[in-house]
Every structure is written in structure tokens, then in C-alpha cells.
């Protein structure tokens, strides 16, 4: 374990937190925000970005997620060529998008495509919260809607991993309307007998929570994920009452009947594969 490595080398019984923070070599090591232990990034990655000490689920990039779930060399990406515009003429908006494009290597906050999971072919959309906080603008809405339409045409299931702060402010009401666009696509897919699985990861809030994330045939979430419609601070200001500590967590939603299961990341592939198996691959009637 890394903590042993640290304590041996530095001969500290414990590292004071402030000091520890300063000593993390950027890029090589990562500190768990939950238990404050420090790990090699490589070690965390091998553990699917789940803290080996406390099981805290760190966020995953879209690529990491895809690699962790789909059989090697089966991933086919869709609609990489759709590019963000600036409908309201917001200053700096396109520059910010460009910066995130460079940072993430993605064209927008969602990756769509298809792949095979233990042999089961499925369409998917995986959101990436590093890109403009995973917010949904026209491109995100369009890519998700197209992926659902393709799943419908190709008669394969659709799995979505959400990670989003909600609407993309800089696209105003056009962002809001993506909720409708994606929801209609899901309805059409559903009417055709399509199987949709939604997995909510940290965070899934606002307009994304209030559209496709919540209307799968099965709704799952990762442990500890923040999921909700309104922001905690807005609610506190509105009702002037303290909220429970687990408010708007995956566990809170499970307790209140809004989720089918909270699934540990290590078990994700197995549960999804089992479900695909139960649906016999999720093929739609022709």
C-alpha cells in the first residue's frame, strides 16, 4: 500500500494534512478527498479510480469509463464532428470550449458510440464532467439524441452514464430545449421496445437529472454520487432549514425510491452484463 511506502520513506507516523498537500507531486500522486490518503495515480487507475482505502469513487473520464466497460477494440465512436456554436454571442464562450477540447481531447462533454460488453453489443453515451462541468448545450443534446436514434435503428440497447452540472448557461433556452429533444428520442426508442439503462455518476444535477438521466428502464447510480434537481444552497436559502447530510446522494435517492440500485464501480460491468443477458442482448422486436 502506498501509505506504507510513505510512512517508511519519510519515517512519519502521520503526515499533517497541510504539509501533505504541499508534498503531492502534481500528476504522479493523487489525494483522496474523502480519507485524505495519498495514492499513486497509476494505482488508483488500476482500481477504477476507487479509493483502495475508503472506497470513495473518484470521477472517471469518459475514456476511462469506456475502457473499463467495453471489450477491447469493439468501441466505435459516433458524431465526433459536431462542433459547438455560440448562439447567444457570449464573450469568451467558444474560447472556453476550445480550452476544454484541448484539455480533454473530446469534442464536447459527451462521448457517444457503440461497443460490446462481454459480447453484448450496445449503444452508449458517456458524459465527461471535465468538459464545461459536463453541462448540456446543443451539441451534447444532439449527440445523445442521435445515439438514441441509432440504437433504435440498429435495434441495440442504449446505456448512458451521466455526469453533469445541468444546463449550459451560455446557450440559454436552447440548452433547456435539449431536455425535450433527448426525452422525445427516448420515448420513440422506448415505444420501439428499446432497452435503456441510465447510470448516474457524480454529479448528475439540474436539467440532466430532470431529463434522460431519470427515465431509463433501469436507473442506477454510483455510491456517493450527487444527484438532484435543485442546488443544495438554493434549497437551504429557500426553506431555511438544515438538510440531512446524505441529502441528494445516490443512497438518499435509493432510500426514497428513485433508484433501482446503487452499484459499486467494481461491480458495474457485471451487473450491466447480467441485465443485458436477462434482456437477451436487448434486441428489439422487428
Amino acid at each position, binding site marked *: 500500500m502506498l501509505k506504507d511506502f510513505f510512512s517508511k520513506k519519510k519515517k512519519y507516523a502521520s503526515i499533517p494534512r497541510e504539509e501533505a498537500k504541499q508534498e503531492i507531486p502534481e500528476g504522479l500522486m493523487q489525494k483522496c478527498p474523502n480519507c485524505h490518503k495519498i495514492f499513486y495515480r497509476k494505482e488508483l487507475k488500476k482500481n477504477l479510480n476507487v479509493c483502495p482505502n475508503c472506497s470513495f469513487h473518484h470521477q472517471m473520464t469518459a475514456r476511462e469509463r469506456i475502457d473499463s466497460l467495453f471489450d477491447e477494440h469493439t468501441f466505435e465512436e459516433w458524431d465526433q*464532428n*459536431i*462542433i*459547438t*456554436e*455560440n*448562439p*447567444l454571442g*457570449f464573450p469568451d464562450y467558444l474560447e472556453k470550449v476550445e480550452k476544454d477540447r484541448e484539455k480533454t481531447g473530446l469534442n464536447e462533454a459527451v462521448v457517444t458510440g457503440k461497443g460490446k460488453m462481454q459480447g453484448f453489443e450496445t449503444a452508449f453515451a458517456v458524459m465527461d464532467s471535465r468538459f464545461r462541468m459536463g453541462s448540456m448545450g*446543443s*451539441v451534447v*443534446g*444532439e449527440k445523445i*439524441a442521435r445515439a438514441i436514434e441509432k440504437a433504435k435503428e440498429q435495434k441495440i440497447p442504449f446505456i448512458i452514464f451521466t455526469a453533469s452540472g445541468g*444546463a449550459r*448557461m451560455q*446557450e*440559454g*433556452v*436552447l*440548452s*433547456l*430545449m*435539449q*431536455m*425535450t*429533444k433527448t*426525452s*422525445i*428520442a*427516448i*420515448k*420513440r426508442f*422506448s*415505444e420501439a421496445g428499446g432497452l435503456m439503462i441510465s447510470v448516474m455518476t457524480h454529479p448528475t444535477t*439540474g*436539467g440532466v*437529472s*430532470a*431529463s*434522460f*438521466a*431519470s*427515465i431509463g428502464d433501469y436507473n442506477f447510480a454510483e455510491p456517493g454520487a450527487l*444527484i*438532484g*434537481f*435543485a*442546488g443544495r444552497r*438554493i*434549497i437551504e436559502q*429557500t*426553506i431555511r*432549514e438544515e*438538510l440531512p447530510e446524505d*441529502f*441528494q446522494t445516490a443512497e438518499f435517492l435509493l432510500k*426514497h*425510491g*428513485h433508484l433501482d440500485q446503487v452499484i459499486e464501480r467494481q461491480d458495474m460491468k457485471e451487473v450491466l452484463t447480467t441485465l443485458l443477458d436477462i434482456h437477451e442482448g436487448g434486441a428489439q422486436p422487428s
Partner: protein
Amino acid sequence: MKQVLEFEKPVMELREKIAELKKFTAESDMDLTSEIETLEQRLVKLEEDVYGNMKPWDRVQMARHAERPTTLDYVKELFTHFLEFHGDRLYGDDEAIVSGVAKYKGKPVTVIGHQRGKDTKENIRRNFGMPHPEGYRKALRHMKQAEKFNRPIICFIDTKGAYPGKAAEERGQSEAIARNLMEMAGLRVPIICIVIGEGGSGGALALGVGDRIHMLENSTYSVISPEGAAALLWKDSGLAQKAAETMMITSYDLKKLQVIDDIIPELKGGAHRDVALQATEIDHVLNQSLQELYDLPKEELLEKRWEKYKQIGDYSTL
């Protein structure tokens, strides 16, 4: 007390002056008729100036006007035989949404709308028109009923947003909104949505999936309130006026963005000046929309609904 908005003060002052002069003429033996006529001509011009050049922020104020007609005000003017029905059959009855059946020009319809209160007491009962999940679920129950009995659905949108509260989250605000979006997509009857006041984000949208979306001229439709946008974008909710301009939230903006179908003209000085007269403007557009949709084969209706929303958005392809 009549609420007077900042930008329309010159109009109100001139109107008062004319009223005073008229009173004076009637009570004394001095004849001010010609002065009054001059002022009345000036008033017409001033009204055109003031109401013909409203800024986005002026429209926000108008959409929030204390006397602005609500869903039930228009229901009274537009329909006959209205019966309100309550409850979502799951949890309770949310009075922030009213819902029921009525006749429109002799034909049955289902009418649903956000409902604000007229005074503090009613506003508390109706939660200022900000629904909980049970409100949306009541609406959906009535929409499904409309589908079963093949009557068109007319939705009036008028809310600051879905209520941001603890209970609302516990009972699944997100799911309730999402479910409505999804189910409205597939309803095999015409749906007409009319924004009559504030169209606040997902809470508005949950009654807003339709074959025609219209907006009263001075209503707004936005992803976030101008105050909220200002706080998020510039960390200063005082910049709401600027946000109202930047965020493109007026009926003219939404028409330009190709989100809505028609702008319903408002009376000079706003819908509250004469509800009955304003209702005739709504009536005209509503009637036309229904005429266009009544006889459309169901499959075509749904296909066109999809096409309508599919094209909304701004992006380019490499």
C-alpha cells in the same frame, strides 16, 4: 394599489394629468377641452414610444406584474364548462397547478396550467405557482386521460420554476419533470402550449412539450432567471438587467432562436389592462393551431412533434 413599472411612469403620469384636467373641466366653468385633446394625442404617441420600445428587462417586469392574468383568468374567458379536478393519486394535490376539462368552441379539451395566487394568502396556498412533483404527476394523469378520450390538451405556462425544496427532492422532482417530457412526447392528441407569464426552466418545460408553442409578447422563457444567471455568470445578482438582455429570454428572442411558433400580441401596457380583450388575441392563435392539428393523422402528429424539437439547437458539423 395599481402596480406601476419604472419604465411606464411617464405614461401613467400623463394619464393622471389628463384625468385631473377632465375632472377640473367638469367641476369648474373653465373649458380645457382643447388642452385635453392635445395631451391625449401626446399620450397616444407616448404610449407607442414607451410600449413599442420595451427592453428585455421591462418585459421581465411585465411578465411578473402583480396584476398579470393567470391561467384561471384566461380559462374563464376562453372556455365553457370548465371543471377542475384534483390530485395525482399518489401523494396529494398540488395547487400550484390547476387541471381539468372544459369545452373550447363546443369541443372537449383538457386544460392544464401553472397557477399563481392573486394575493399573499392564495400565493401561499399555491406555493407562488412553483410546483412539487405531485403537481406534474397530476398534470400527467390528466394528459393521459385526455389521450384516452381523444381531446386536445392546452397548457398554460406561468412559473418561476419547479419548487427547490427538500420535500420536492425527496419525492422526485427530477423524475416527475423528466417523466412529463417523455410522456408528452408520445401523447396521441394535439398539445398546444402557451407561455403567459414567466417560463422558468425545467419547471415550465414539464408542461411545455407540444405541437405548438406560443408566447404572449411580454412573457419570458429561460433556462434560469435573470437574477440566477447574473449570480452564476458574474457573481452579482444585481446585474439581472444585463442578464435579461444577454440570455435571450423574450418572445422575440425565442422566435429568433426558432424555439416558439407564434408571438401573441399584447395590449399596450400589458395583458392586465384588459383580460377579456387579451383573451381574444389568445383565442385567435389557439383556434388556428387547433384547426391545423385536429385532423392530422396521429402518426403524423407525433412525427412532426419530433421533427419540431429535433431541429432546436445551434451547432455546426465539420
